[in-house]
């Protein structure tokens, strides 16, 4: 589905790869006299590479380049995303994250669509991304494009607040062998290998990686049982064939073992819960094929299909086996010199088989949903190089919903080569997930006599299914953005938004009944409904500055104000409002500095500040990462990374939905070697 983008993101699609802006510092007179042989060996500074191409995109876009990933010292995708303005990343433990864009953060943040090479990794059961299962060899990622704001007109439902597109490198860009290995205090051991070669007139790569991570500590100082062991292997092959056909086949298989500690609701316990350790297992594999070709008239077509199989098990609690088949076609044509049109259709079928344990039970046990979609998007040049209007709409029909239209209008004004102003108006929806529709979840126990429980009996709060009456969540988003290349070495990107949300999922108190167990207890049912409204406002600012040819500084700031309210006043609806209102920091600051003293020495610094959540539910924190890389030879690099250096440990988020214990994030160090041969 990432191929849906061309006109919308195409410029951005290619942004990170190249196009270094703003580096017209004094042209060395000898530059043009370097021979071809020497040019091939010249190290290229690729600082500030993004701004220029992004200039053409009428959306709030940030592209994380391969170099950004490497120099961040991050070892997982969510950690990389911390550098993107408007994105909230909170680590719940060493193996769990809450990641969202423009508010509503949660471990299962459901308003963000994440694609990896065109494959959706949004879990239909949890309506969110299980980051502990999603990974690849970080060295193979070409770029991560993050679009804040609704991308639904292009990518479909659930792209309510943003889209993250993780795009891996073409096989021909990863030829030869790569070996990475590292070890450290939290990263106990990590290793990765890739081999790229040629076969059958095309290029391929095969890769594998594995790691084991240490446990963090819970807030009360105990070991968090949040270890993480994962291994995965994959391949990608690209062929350029006759008649302009470009074929890509890729696949991956993984297994991921993550420890967790549950405060499991227990009516027999005086505290209302028992703590128990458990292991979550994620296994999966996928196979994806894509063919892109150009027709005689110059129009382009793309056909993509994938099969994705996942198996998630929370020992003794829940198990889900899911198979998804997705087909996607799109056609892009220049109807007239000033009309760049893309249209496409898509079909997805996803079926699951669940096994319930205590805590969660899903009925019926097996389920399947289909999703059919069609979209059209026209990029109209009103005044060449100056004014463009983009109109698009996507229609989706899923098993759970009626046809949902998701329209979008954007206007892009480029008064000069180094300035652009854009605005956008859009509507997007989020469709209810399988779990929201069919799952019964025990949320917690209020012991007898505890505050809020006047009875002597324990009250078990249980989320019950609602008979598929849940509606889609809707957002109307107003966005405005400005970009300027002030000087060849300084550029700025500002985006502001106002989003209005309707029919957000919430709950209402349902019936109460007595269960004659031993001991007897009360069950308070709570029933899902759509009784919350909210609005968000925010500003995101990113600067990119090269004060010196070997020094790059990238500060960013995000402001978010979120106000949710219940439309019913029901106490449990009000409770979910409280939770929503305290899930996001109001201020986020990030400052990255990348110094390249020479071919051989790099020094990187990353300072982050995240303001408090709610009324100090989580205190504000500041953290610092440092990285020093030494390259004694062109093909060998040794790096030393220190993470979260400013405190011994700090919490970043409070878990929700599943009763996992919160862990503190500890200071960490690791060393890594990278060898190309």
């Amino acid at each position: 589905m990432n191929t849906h983008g061309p006109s919308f993101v195409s410029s951005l699609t290619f942004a990170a790869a190249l196009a270094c802006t703003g580096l017209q510092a004094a042209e060395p007179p000898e530059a043009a006299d370097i021979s071809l042989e020497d040019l091939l060996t010249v190290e290229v500074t690729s600082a500030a590479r993004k701004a220029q191409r992004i200039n053409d995109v009428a959306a709030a876009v940030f592209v994380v380049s391969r170099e950004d990933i490497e120099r961040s010292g991050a070892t997982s995708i969510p950690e990389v995303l911390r550098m993107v303005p408007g994105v909230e990343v909170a680590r719940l433990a060493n193996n769990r994250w809450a990641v969202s864009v423009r508010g509503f953060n949660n471990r299962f943040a459901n308003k963000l669509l994440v694609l990896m090479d065109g494959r959706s990794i949004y879990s239909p059961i949890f309506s969110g991304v299980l980051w502990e299962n999603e990974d690849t060899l970080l060295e193979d990622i070409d770029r991560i494009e993050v679009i804040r704001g609704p991308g639904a007109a292009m990518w479909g439902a659930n792209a309510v607040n943003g889209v993250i597109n993780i795009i891996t490198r073409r096989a021909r860009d990863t030829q030869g062998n790569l070996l990475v290995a590292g070890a450290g205090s939290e990263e106990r051991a990590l290793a990765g290998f890739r081999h790229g070669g040629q076969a059958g007139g095309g290029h391929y790569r095969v890769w594998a990686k594995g790691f084991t991570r240490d446990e963090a500590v819970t807030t009360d100082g105990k070991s968090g049982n949040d270890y993480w062991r994962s291994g995965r292997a994959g391949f990608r092959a690209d062929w350029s064939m006759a008649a302009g056909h470009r074929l890509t086949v890729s696949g991956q298989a993984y297994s991921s073992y993550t420890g967790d500690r549950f405060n499991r609701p227990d009516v027999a316990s005086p505290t209302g819960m028992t703590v128990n350790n458990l292991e979550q297992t994620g296994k999966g594999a996928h196979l994806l094929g894509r063919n892109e070709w150009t027709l005689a008239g110059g129009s382009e077509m793309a056909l993509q299909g994938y099969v994705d199989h996942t198996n998630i098990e929370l020992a003794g609690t829940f198990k889900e086996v899911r198979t998804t088949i997705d087909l996607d076609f799109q056609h892009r044509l220049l109807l007239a010199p000033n009309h760049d049109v893309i249209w496409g259709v898509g079909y997805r079928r996803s079926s699951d088989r669940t096994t319930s344990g205590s805590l969660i039970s899903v009925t019926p046990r097996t389920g399947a949903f289909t999703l059919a979609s069609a979209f059209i998007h026209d990029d109209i040049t009103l005044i060449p190089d100056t004014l463009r209007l983009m109109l698009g709409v996507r229609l989706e029909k899923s098993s759970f919903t009626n046809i949902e239209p998701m329209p979008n209008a954007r206007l892009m004004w480029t008064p000069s080569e180094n300035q652009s102003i854009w605005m956008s108006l859009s509507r997007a929806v989020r469709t209810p997930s399988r779990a929201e529709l069919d799952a019964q979840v025990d949320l917690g126990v209020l012991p007898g006599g505890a505050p809020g429980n006047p009875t002597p009996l324990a009250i078990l709060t249980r989320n019950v299914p609602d008979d598929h009456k849940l509606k889609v969540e809707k957002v109307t988003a107003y966005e405005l953005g400005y970009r300027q290349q002030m000087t060849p070495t300084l550029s700025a990107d500002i985006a502001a938004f106002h989003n209005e949300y309707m029919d957000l999922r919430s709950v209402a108190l349902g019936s109460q009944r007595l269960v004659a167990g031993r001991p007897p207890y009360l069950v308070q049912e709570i029933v899902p409904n759509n009784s919350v409204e909210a609005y968000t406002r925010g500003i995101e600012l990113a600067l990119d500055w090269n004060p010196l040819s070997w020094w790059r500084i990238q500060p960013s700031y995000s402001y978010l104000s979120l106000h949710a309210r219940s439309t019913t006043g029901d106490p449990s609806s009000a409770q979910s409002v409280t939770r929503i209102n305290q899930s996001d920091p109001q201020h986020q600051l990030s400052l990255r500095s990348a110094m390249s003293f020479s071919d051989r020495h790099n020094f990187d610094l990353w300072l982050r500040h995240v303001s408090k959540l709610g009324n100090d539910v989580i205190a504000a924190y500041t953290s610092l990462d440092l990285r020093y890389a030494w390259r004694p030879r062109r093909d060998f690099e040794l790096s030393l990374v220190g993470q979260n250096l400013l405190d011994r440990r700090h919490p970043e988020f409070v878990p929700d939905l599943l009763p996992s214990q919160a862990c503190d994030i500890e200071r960490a160090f690791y060393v890594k070697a990278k060898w190309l041969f």
Partner: protein
Amino acid sequence: MTRHGHRTLLVLAAGVLLLLGSARAQPTLTESQAKAAFVLNFARYVEWPERAFPARETPLSICLLGRDPVGNALLALEGRQVHNRVVTVRRLANADEARTCHVLFLAESEERRLVHALRGLIGLPVLTVGDTDGFIDNGGAIGLVQGEGRLQFEVNRHVLDQAQLKASSNLLKLARNLSDLKGRN
């Protein structure tokens, strides 16, 4: 894992200070400068058919389509000599003006009109150079691509033949996608 944290931090900081002390700016090229230098080199390694130069003093015309910082770096090439001809650099407003160019650099901003632009030049002696993804697959002659921290290039020989451009064997040998030619000639 945290006991030695402070000490390690100190060591790190000391290392950084040492480094700063010995820091010196490495004279590297910007990506745009490197790309422009590549373009000039490609022109040196390619022979045009005679009809491409109506007169002895006809300059070698390098054109740029689209907005790109490479443009400024290309403009800096104006006045240089290639094949004993003076280099001129022009920015084009649209692809139709490219027919009289000898070299055409297609910037990334033109990606949406890339195929259209390239089709209009089929059979004309215009050396097309670009840095978009899959440039040569889309009918471009020479594509600049990112290698490990360096730039590399790929050549579409079929397109060169169509354009009646004769590339030197040195150029072909250095092309990444034709590297199997190495040592053969």
